[in-house]
C-alpha cells in the first residue's frame, strides 16, 4: 500500500480521493434507499475543505507531496503552491455548495458523475506533469458529459454528444502537444512557458486548453450544452471546466499576447449574445464565456496585478455563477421552464429565489459590497496600470453589458415583467434554498472583507478596492446602465428563438460526415456485400462448418468441452450487455480505466 501512504499520508490527503471513493461506493447503493445514504454526499467536500485548509495554513512555497510510477513515468499528483491552492480552495467550497443543492436528487448516476467530474478538477489543479493533467482532464470531460446526458431528454443526449466530441477534439490537441513536447524536451513537467521561447507544441497544448476555457471561436460547446444539463449538474459544470482551464493557462501561459486579445473578444462576445438570448441558462452560459474572458485577458497581460486579478475573479466567479445557475435552476425546477418568454410575474411567489438570484446578479455586475466588485476592478485596474487602456475600456464595456443582461434583463423578465403569475409551481426543496443562501452569504462576505480573498492570491497585493473613486465609478456604471435599459425598454424584450453561433459549424461537419457514410460509403458497401454474398460467402461457410466441427469435436473435446459450455452460458449475458448505446460503452470504459488506475495507484 505504498501508493496509499504517499497519497493519503499525514501531510496531504488528495481531495480527489474522497470523491473517487464515494463514486465507487455509490455503485453499490440503490436509488430506492437514497434518503438514508444521501448525507454521504457531503463527506468528500468536507474532507476536501479540511485538506485544502490544512495545506493553506501549512508551510509556504511550492511543494511536491505525492507521486507514483505509472507507464514508466513518475506522475506528480501533488504539486502544491499558492496558485494551485487558490483554485483548490474555491473548488472545495463550491463542491460542498453544489452537493447541498443536489441533496434531493434521488439519482446516484448524477452524483457519481459529479464526483468523477470534481475529482478530475482537483486532479488537474494539483497535477505537476502533463500526463497526470491529461488523465484528470479527460476524467472531467467524461464526468461532465454524464451530467448532461442524465437529464434524459432528447435535446440533452444530442447536446451531450456534441459536447463530448468537442472535448475529445480539445483533449487530442493536449495529448498531441504534450507528446511532441516530450519528444523535444524529454520531460512531461508542467511548467510555465515563456512567450518568447514558445515552440509549436506549446501552441498545440494551448489550443487544447483554450477549448476548455471556451475561448471564442472554440466556445460554442458551452452555451450549447450547459442549458441542456440537469438542474444540479449545470451548477457543478459552471464551476469546474472553464476555471480549471483558467488555472492551467495561468500556470503555463501567462504573458501571451494572444490571450490578452482573445480574452477581450470573449468578454464582449459573451455579453453580446447574452443580450439577445431567451433561455435563462443560456444567457448565464454566455456570461461564463464573458467572465472567463476577464480572466484570460488578465493572464494574457501577465503582470502580477492582472494575474492576481484573474485568480481573484475565478474565485469570485465560481461562487456567483454557481449562485446564478442555482437561481435559474430553481426556476426550471419549479416553473418547468427557463425561457424568459414563458416566465414573468414570479417575484412575489418566489421572493427568496429572486433575492438570492439578485445577490449573484449584482456580484457578477461588480456592485460594491459584493465579491465581483473586489475582483473585477482588480483586473481592470491592473490592465489600465499596465497601460493597456483599450483592453481596460473593453472590459468596462463588457461590464455594462453584463449588468444589462444578467443584472436587469434576466431578472426583470423572469420575476417582474408580467402581472403576478398564476402558473402551478412545484415546491422547491429546502436544500436548494440552503445552497443559494450559503453562496449569497459568501458573495457578500468576500465583498465586504476582500482581504479574506486577497490573502490567498499568488502574488502579494496592496490593492484597495474601496476607494471613493472606485465605488463612485462602479455606481455610475451600474446606475446609468440601468437608465439605458429603461430608455430601451420597448426594444429589449426577449423573443422565443435561439441564435446562430459557431456550433452550427460542427453540426454541419457532423451532418456532412453522416451523409458521407450513409450515401456514397453505404452504396459502395452494398455493392461489396452483393459480391461477397454471391462469391465469397458460400466458400467461407463451407470452410467454416469444417473448422467448427474440428474445433468442437477435436480441440475442445480433447480438453473437457468447457469452451462449448462457456459459449452457451455467456452468450446471453454478453448479448444483454451489448446495449448498442454509446453512453453505456463510455461508462464501462471509464469504469475499467479507473479500476486499472486505482489498482496501479494503490498496489504499484
Amino acid at each position, binding site marked *: 500500500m505504498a501508493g496509499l501512504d504517499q497519497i493519503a499520508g499525514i501531510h496531504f490527503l488528495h481531495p480527489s480521493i474522497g470523491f473517487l471513493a464515494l463514486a465507487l461506493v455509490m455503485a453499490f447503493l440503490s436509488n430506492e434507499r437514497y434518503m438514508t445514504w444521501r448525507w454521504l454526499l457531503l463527506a468528500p467536500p468536507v474532507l476536501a475543505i479540511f485538506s485544502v485548509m490544512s495545506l493553506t495554513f501549512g508551510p509556504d512555497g511550492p511543494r511536491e507531496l505525492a507521486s507514483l510510477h505509472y507507464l514508466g513515468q513518475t506522475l506528480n499528483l501533488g504539486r502544491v503552491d499558492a496558485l494551485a491552492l487558490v483554485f483548490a480552495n474555491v473548488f472545495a467550497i463550491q463542491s460542498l455548495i453544489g452537493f447541498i443543492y443536489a441533496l434531493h436528487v434521488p439519482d446516484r448516476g448524477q452524483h457519481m458523475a459529479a464526483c468523477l467530474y470534481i475529482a478530475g478538477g482537483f486532479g488537474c489543479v494539483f497535477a505537476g506533469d502533463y500526463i497526470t493533467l491529461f488523465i484528470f482532464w479527460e476524467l472531467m470531460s467524461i464526468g461532465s458529459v454524464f451530467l448532461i446526458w442524465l437529464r434524459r431528454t432528447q435535446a440533452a443526449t444530442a447536446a451531450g454528444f456534441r459536447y463530448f466530441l468537442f472535448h475529445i477534439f480539445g483533449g487530442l490537441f493536449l495529448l498531441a502537444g504534450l507528446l511532441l513536447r516530450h519528444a523535444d524536451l524529454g520531460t512531461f513537467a508542467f511548467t510555465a512557458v515563456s512567450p518568447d521561447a514558445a515552440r509549436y507544441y506549446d501552441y498545440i497544448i494551448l489550443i487544447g486548453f483554450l477549448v476548455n476555457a471556451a475561448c471564442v471561436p472554440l466556445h460554442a460547446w458551452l452555451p450549447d450544452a450547459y442549458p441542456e444539463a440537469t438542474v444540479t449538474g449545470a451548477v457543478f459544470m459552471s464551476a469546474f471546466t472553464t476555471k480549471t482551464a483558467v488555472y492551467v493557462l495561468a500556470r503555463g501561459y501567462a504573458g501571451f499576447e494572444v490571450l490578452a486579445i482573445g480574452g477581450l473578444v470573449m468578454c464582449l462576445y459573451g455579453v453580446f449574445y447574452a443580450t439577445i438570448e431567451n433561455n435563462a441558462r443560456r444567457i448565464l452560459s454566455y456570461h461564463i464565456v464573458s467572465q472567463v474572458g476577464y480572466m484570460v485577458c488578465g493572464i494574457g497581460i501577465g503582470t502580477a496585478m492582472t494575474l492576481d486579478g484573474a485568480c481573484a475573479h475565478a474565485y469570485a466567479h465560481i461562487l456567483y455563477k454557481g449562485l446564478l445557475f442555482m437561481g435559474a435552476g430553481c426556476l426550471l425546477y419549479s416553473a418547468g421552464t427557463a425561457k424568459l418568454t414563458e416566465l414573468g410575474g414570479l417575484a412575489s411567489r418566489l421572493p427568496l429565489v429572486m433575492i438570492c438570484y439578485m445577490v449573484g446578479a449584482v456580484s457578477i455586475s461588480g456592485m460594491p459590497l459584493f465579491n465581483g466588485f473586489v475582483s473585477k476592478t482588480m483586473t481592470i485596474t491592473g490592465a489600465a496600470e499596465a497601460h493597456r487602456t483599450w483592453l481596460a475600456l473593453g472590459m468596462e464595456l463588457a461590464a455594462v453589458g453584463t449588468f444589462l443582461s444578467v443584472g436587469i434583463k434576466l431578472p426583470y423578465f423572469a420575476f417582474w415583467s408580467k402581472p403576478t403569475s398564476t402558473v402551478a409551481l412545484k415546491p422547491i426543496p429546502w436544500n436548494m434554498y440552503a445552497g443559494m443562501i450559503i453562496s449569497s452569504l459568501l458573495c457578500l462576505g468576500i465583498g465586504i472583507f476582500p482581504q479574506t480573498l486577497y490573502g490567498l492570491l499568488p502574488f502579494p497585493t496592496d490593492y484597495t478596492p474601496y476607494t471613493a473613486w472606485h465605488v463612485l465609478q462602479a455606481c455610475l456604471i451600474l446606475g446609468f446602465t440601468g437608465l439605458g435599459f429603461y430608455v430601451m425598454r420597448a426594444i429589449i424584450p426577449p423573443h422565443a428563438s*435561439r441564435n*446562430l453561433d459557431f456550433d452550427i459549424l460542427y453540426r454541419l461537419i457532423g451532418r456532412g460526415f453522416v451523409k458521407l457514410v450513409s450515401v456514397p460509403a453505404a452504396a459502395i458497401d452494398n455493392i461489396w456485400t452483393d459480391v461477397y454474398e454471391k462469391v465469397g460467402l458460400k466458400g467461407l461457410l463451407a470452410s467454416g462448418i469444417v473448422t467448427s466441427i474440428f474445433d468442437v469435436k477435436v480441440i475442445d473435446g480433447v480438453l473437457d468441452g468447457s469452451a462449448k459450455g462457456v459459449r452457451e452460458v455467456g452468450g446471453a449475458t454478453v448479448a444483454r450487455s451489448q446495449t448498442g448505446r454509446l453512453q453505456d460503452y463510455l461508462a464501462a470504459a471509464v469504469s475499467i480505466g479507473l479500476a486499472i488506475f486505482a489498482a496501479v495507484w494503490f498496489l504499484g
Partner: protein
Amino acid sequence: MREPQLLGSWLEAARARADAWKKALFAVLGALVVLNIFITPHHPHFVGEGLPGFWAVFSLGAAIAMVYVLKKIVYPVLARPEDDNGRP
C-alpha cells in the same frame, strides 16, 4: 419549502409603487453625477476619465447602442426557431 408570504406581499406592494421607485432612481443618478464633480480619479488612466460624467455618458451610451445594434441589426440575422436544435 414554503416561500415567506410576508416578503412576497411586500414585493407586490413595492411593485405597485413603480413611479416612486422611478423617481428615486433618477434622484440617485442625479446625486451620483453631482458627486462625480467632486470625486474624480487621482491618476486618470486616459484623458477623458478625469472629466465629471464620463462614466455616466459611457455607460448610458454603451447600453443604448448595444441594445439597439444587437436587437435591431444583429438579432434578425442570427435568430432561429428556439427548439429546432440547429437543424437547417
